């Protein structure tokens, strides 16, 4: 059986990079790309675990995740575009009318 630990470690690193990116970046598009990075690191982990367990569940899940991520891009970019056209800025800090 192949040792999949390096792949899992890589996926954990990618997930962390995505997570830190979401928390620190200010441009909505970049934040969104970081979220996509998180989803793709999940795909890597799913496929690696599928290899380890020798069944197909994880690989099939990776396909579903790609479809869901594509649907999320459609919805997300539509919302970010609208905000950008209204405010002339894609910074997540500028949208701050709702607070406390």
């Amino acid at each position: 059986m192949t040792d999949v630990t390096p792949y899992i470690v890589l996926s954990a690193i990618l997930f962390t990079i995505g997570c830190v990116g979401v928390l620190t970046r200010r441009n909505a598009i970049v934040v969104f790309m970081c979220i996509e990075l998180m989803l793709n690191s999940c795909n890597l982990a799913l496929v690696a675990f599928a290899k380890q367990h020798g069944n197909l569940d994880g690989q099939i899940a990776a396909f579903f995740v790609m479809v869901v991520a594509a649907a999320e891009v459609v919805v997300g970019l539509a919302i970010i575009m609208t905000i950008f056209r209204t405010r002339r800025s894609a910074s997540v800090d500028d949208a701050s009318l709702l607070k406390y």
Partner: protein
Amino acid sequence: MEFDKPQIEYGHLWPLLVVLGVACLGVLVEAFLPRERRRLTQTILAMLGLLAALGGAIWVGLDLPKLGDGVARGDLMMEGTLVVDGPTVFLWGLVLVFAIGGVLLFSERRLEGGVSAFAGQAAALPGTEAERQASTRGLEQTEVFPLLMFAVGGMMLFPAANDLLTMFVALEVLSLPLYLLSGLARRRRLLSQEAALKYFMLGAFSSGFFLYGVALVYGFAGSMRFADINEAVRNDTENQTLLLVGMGMLAVGLLFKVGAVPFHNWTPDVYQGAPTAVTGFMSACTKIAAFGALLRLFYVAFGSDRWSWQPMMWVIAILTMLVGSVLAIVQTDVKRMLAYSSVAHTGFILTGVLGVQAATDLADHEVTSLQAVLFYLTTYGFAMVGAFGVVTMVRDSGGESATFARWAGLGRRAPVIAGVFAFFLLSMAGIPLTAGFVGKWAVFTVALSAGAWPVVLVAILASVISVFFYVRLIWLMFFSEEPTEGEVAAVHTPSLATLVTVAVGAAGTLVLGVVPGPVLDLAAHAGEFIR
């Protein structure tokens, strides 16, 4: 490797398929019908679809097969990826009833003078010529009805999911339409778009956590099925780290959806910014679906590892109740206050989740924690949909008006509507003879019988705090002086649809408070989750 054609049990799944089918049909209607005929067609289509699905859910519920000699009834569907059992059908019924309320609120047109509460043309920028034209030409975004139906489909799939992948897909199917719906308000569009952006960003972030949890738990158990995960949790002693981290990440995703502290930050912003009809719909239905999924995941898949997750739930329940009710005190906006109160309600429901799980551990006539949570969700849904229905009617020259200052003296200007709203608030506070009291009593009892008395103590404290801010708003409506300067809000006459929603909400709250027996029995009859 061979693939077999999956067997699909249409007989038990058709309520779900009807809802998703009607949603697709709605998209076709948008594409092919002329604009002036779309609104009526969409409303009727959505309504008929939901009514058919509700009838179907009752029908399916009546002939669920009994499983062994236990209290559980139901069966696995679609090769074990879905499960239709008593709790699933009960949650389907709840989601559908409140979704019907949602459609009625969506179809309201009298309050805005002949147009709906949704943006005439979502792509037209606020304050431009294009937006003015859209409103003078009476354009409407009728896509809200198919979006609502897709969301309802996801909400029905969510508590029925019996494996992690299906649960993830259901989570996204219910969330994506809600992100869009929150950004479609006709008035105060900047707020609405901001709410959509925040909801989307945080929602996608949390579903990333959920998905990594799926991957880790799959790595631990080697399967996505809840039954197999349960088996692995019982037998496997290595790789505990994978299990614990995975479980934590799955919990982040689900607790975000129910709006528990520390994942509650989106709740007030989205509830305030979204169109009020959408807020009413999603405050009730999302919470119902997400609690169904949370219960199934933690009882069925991780039930044998209760001691790992219960301390976490204790802490989160306590934090949620305290933060929700303390922050609600300082709010000056009715919608925002209701949002924080819904955070506090999440905490009360989590208190119920901590209770004893199996009916076999209990003496006769004691409520199980599943039964208590289902009942609480029912009472909560009626009060929330009704309360937000009232909020849509209270208006001034700028549209809906939700700031406290404008609500002062509302009880003297419109005693009936203000009285109904006060009744909803009393129910949320848990005053006897309202549904909220019985709900609170049920969840506190089950948590006590599981030995979670510190949580119950905090819950009682939080209830006392919450009585304060509910009663303060009632005082403001009925007994405070009207402000001498500045505009005040008045209750405008809505169409029959909104009135019916509010009336049903009030009737439900009253009936469940006076004779809770039948619904408690029904929840008991729903039995347990099957594996």
